């Protein structure tokens, strides 16, 4: 019993190539799941449509040239932020909890797939679906509801970083939160209240400026409020910043709070993610 089998090292860099292969696999399976596409992918679009139609007569203020801000214009940034939260956090955590329940993770955990490649696949899937979702929202808003989209490249640059930072943060938090539900069946019951409450207190469905100050302060702990604020800074007239806390868009606040949550999420993933629940 002297000869030991030397375990050959796997080639370096496979984490990234396998991550890319996971992204393709995840995106493919995402769109083949009819129900998740409907609830998380089209949900913000459906709500934008409902709000735009329901509140078509309501006034949301005026822009610099004195034109009325329509419901579609007002709700577009909110729905973009909600889409990021739903695709990233809600869909991701429920999806992973289900994969833990149905044995997908157990199988992957017994294979030489790096955990990081699995994460890359999940985050990539959220980025791809989030981009398509935002694109669709912007398209419908512009074409069907005649929302005038910004022409200033600086605004689009803001949109790009708020979107990317938001999507990564929500995806990472989604992975971390997936450890919460004990079973796949309980996942929706555990996760949806969290995201629903966040949406209500963060200015997605209700106008943030109308919330009581203590609730505004409470919501400011969480990233969704900041994401929605970042999106408003892109799509609402600049004069609307007076309605924000402190009367400014506070983009550095958006970056800082979201980035802190990104780090918190990463640390939580690193500490809590397990392919399976070991019984000992």
């Amino acid at each position: 019993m002297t000869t030991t089998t030397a375990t050959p090292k796997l080639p370096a860099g496979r984490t990234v190539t396998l991550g890319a292969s996971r992204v393709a696999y995840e995106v493919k399976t995402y769109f083949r799941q009819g129900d998740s596409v409907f609830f998380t992918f089209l949900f913000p679009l459906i709500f934008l449509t409902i709000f735009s139609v329901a509140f078509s007569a309501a006034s949301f203020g005026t822009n610099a040239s004195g034109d009325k801000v329509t419901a579609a214009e007002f709700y577009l940034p909110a729905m973009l932020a909600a889409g990021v939260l739903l695709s990233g956090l809600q869909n991701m955590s429920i999806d992973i909890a289900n994969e833990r329940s149905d044995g997908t993770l157990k199988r992957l955990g017994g294979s030489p797939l790096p955990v990081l490649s699995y994460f890359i696949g999940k985050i990539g899937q959220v980025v791809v679906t989030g981009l398509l979702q935002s694109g669709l929202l912007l398209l419908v808003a512009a074409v069907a509801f005649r929302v005038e989209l910004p022409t200033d490249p600086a605004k689009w640059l803001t949109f790009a970083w708020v979107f990317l930072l938001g999507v990564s943060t929500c995806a990472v938090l989604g992975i971390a939160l997936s450890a919460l539900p004990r079973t796949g069946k309980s996942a929706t019951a555990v996760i949806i209240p969290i995201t629903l409450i966040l949406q209500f207190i963060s200015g997605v469905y209700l106008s943030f400026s109308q919330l009581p100050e203590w609730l505004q302060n409470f919501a400011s702990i969480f990233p969704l409020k900041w994401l929605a604020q970042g999106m408003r800074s892109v799509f609402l007239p600049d004069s609307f910043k007076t309605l924000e806390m402190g009367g400014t868009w506070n983009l550095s606040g958006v970056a800082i709070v979201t980035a802190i949550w990104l780090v918190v999420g990463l640390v939580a993933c690193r500490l809590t993610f397990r392919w399976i629940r070991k019984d000992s």
Partner: protein
Amino acid sequence: MTTPEPHVRVRDLRKTYGNFVALDGVSFDIERGETFALLGPNGAGKSTTIEILEGYRDRSSGEASVLGVDPQHGGLDWKARLGIVLQSSGESGNVTVREQLAHFAGFYPHPRDVDEVIAAVGLTDKAKSRIKSLSGGQRRRVDVALGVVGRPELLFLDEPTTGFDPEARREFWELIRSLKREGTTILLTTHYLDEAAQLGDRAGVIAGGTLIDIGTIDEIGGADSRIPLVRWRDENGQHEERTTEPASLVARLFAATGGEPAGLEVRRPSLEDVYLALVAAHGTNDKTMDQLEHSL
């Protein structure tokens, strides 16, 4: 000494859940290229043992070495050399058989040809079907295909043919024999004793968390348990006698009755008979153990 290290080496393996002892000092080796069948009633500790060796569960005490590595600390390099067919799988299966196998093949440094694997498990006709549309037995074959696509040195098969029809099982045995010929080491748990007899080089019988017997398939239970059994009927009813000389017994019967004895039967106990006798002699309380394992 130049003896190669066994692929699996287990010494005094124990696993406890609170006060409950699921495995109580199990020891065995599996040599390279050997097929070892682990037999035992439900909840006897088969799956606990195999899952400890796969790295899914941590042992409470004892030693375990799989391909020279402690399975509790096996890294990706180690996993790349294993093939695991779990006892159950319930994935949603929104991909086709071929997509799933091609994807998993990509995880391994020297995978087998995907189409050959699909053919080997008899799913060529279903290669383009979504996994969720397959029958239970067909999905099980996908599990087996996923277990072997990475060209493992050591293959774990946890009740691989549950839900197979007899023909599919025979095809599966052929596949396993071809893997054996290529030198794959195999650890198999099964409920089907004929499967163990067909495939296994050696077997271990586990009951109540302990290994109650281990040996080559024709040694299990000891020589005595294989003494042929002669059955016949006469006016006094049913008779049964175990003898090492069944032909002489039959000849005596023939002479005594002056004709064909009614209902004459000469049987050599199968592995199944030997196994059932072994487990019955051990008298485990399987029910409670089964419930406990399921509740965990």
